[in-house]
């Protein structure tokens, strides 16, 4: 199975990277771009035949390590390998 963990800064948390990108894009002339937030995307391969199991494993991994819940929210998507 494959899991995608999308980790984004919580609302209200300073996001210096996102801000910097936004500024650079505006300077480059992308005036239509209003706001940029930068997060992480983590792609995981799991040995698991069962989506529920996979979800649980990745959920645990996210809480324990992948995301910092003080500043980040996460979202998991499980897909079966093609």
């Amino acid at each position, binding site marked *: 199975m494959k899991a995608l963990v999308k980790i984004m800064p919580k609302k209200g948390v*300073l996001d*210096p*990277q996102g801000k910097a990108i936004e500024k650079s894009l505006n300077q480059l002339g992308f005036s239509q771009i209003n706001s940029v937030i930068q997060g992480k995307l983590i792609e995981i391969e799991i040995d698991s035949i069962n989506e529920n199991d996979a979800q649980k494993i990745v959920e645990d991994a996210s809480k324990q*390590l992948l995301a*910092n819940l*003080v500043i980040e929210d996460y979202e998991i998507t499980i897909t079966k390998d093609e």
Partner: protein
Amino acid sequence: MEISVIVFPGSNCDRDVAVSLKQVFKRNPKMVWHKEQTLPKSDLIVLPGGFSYGDYLRCGSMAANSPIMSEIIKCGKSGTFIIGICNGFQILTETNLLPGTLIRNKDLSFICKNLPLKVENSKSRFTHKYSANEIIEIPVAHNEGNYFADQKTINNIEDKDLVAFRYCNKDGIVNDETNPNGSKNNIAGIINEQGNILGMMPHPERASDKVAGLIDGEKFFISILESIQ
């Protein structure tokens, strides 16, 4: 008196802090590999600076999950002195031994320079050798030293006088202009409520050697020594 310096893969200020500790405590700290399950009896635990696990994912995140950390968390809760410098501070927030977290510097670049700091709390067990509001000079060297916590946490830290050091200028002015990295309220170092754990981004071990130029960090180590004795 026993000191343990924890060595994570990628720690790189472990030797430096051991040298400063030895000068003040007059004895060799034990260097403890992160994979150890048990910690030697310690009166002081030091989490040194560096790039544990390459600072990958988030600074300190993987070190916070190292085998030795469960012992350290136990010790911290039962009152053992713990200091975390730079990466060590990041590890302490990742383990929740200290509140908040350290994010990327506001200008996105690594900063290595001497900075003036204001000793905000000169009564703590880590800082009592300094006088109230003393301005000291200590180097920083970090990419993620921008202290962040939600407003409630910040209020609590401020109300309970848990800020150890703040970034300022030579004249002690604390404001946005004297904030090198975007840190909330210019916070450079904090203490936990119990008063036995301190985390700071600046490197006191780089300011404890006359030949290398700075000595303002020495009082930090002496404060700890006297508090333990």
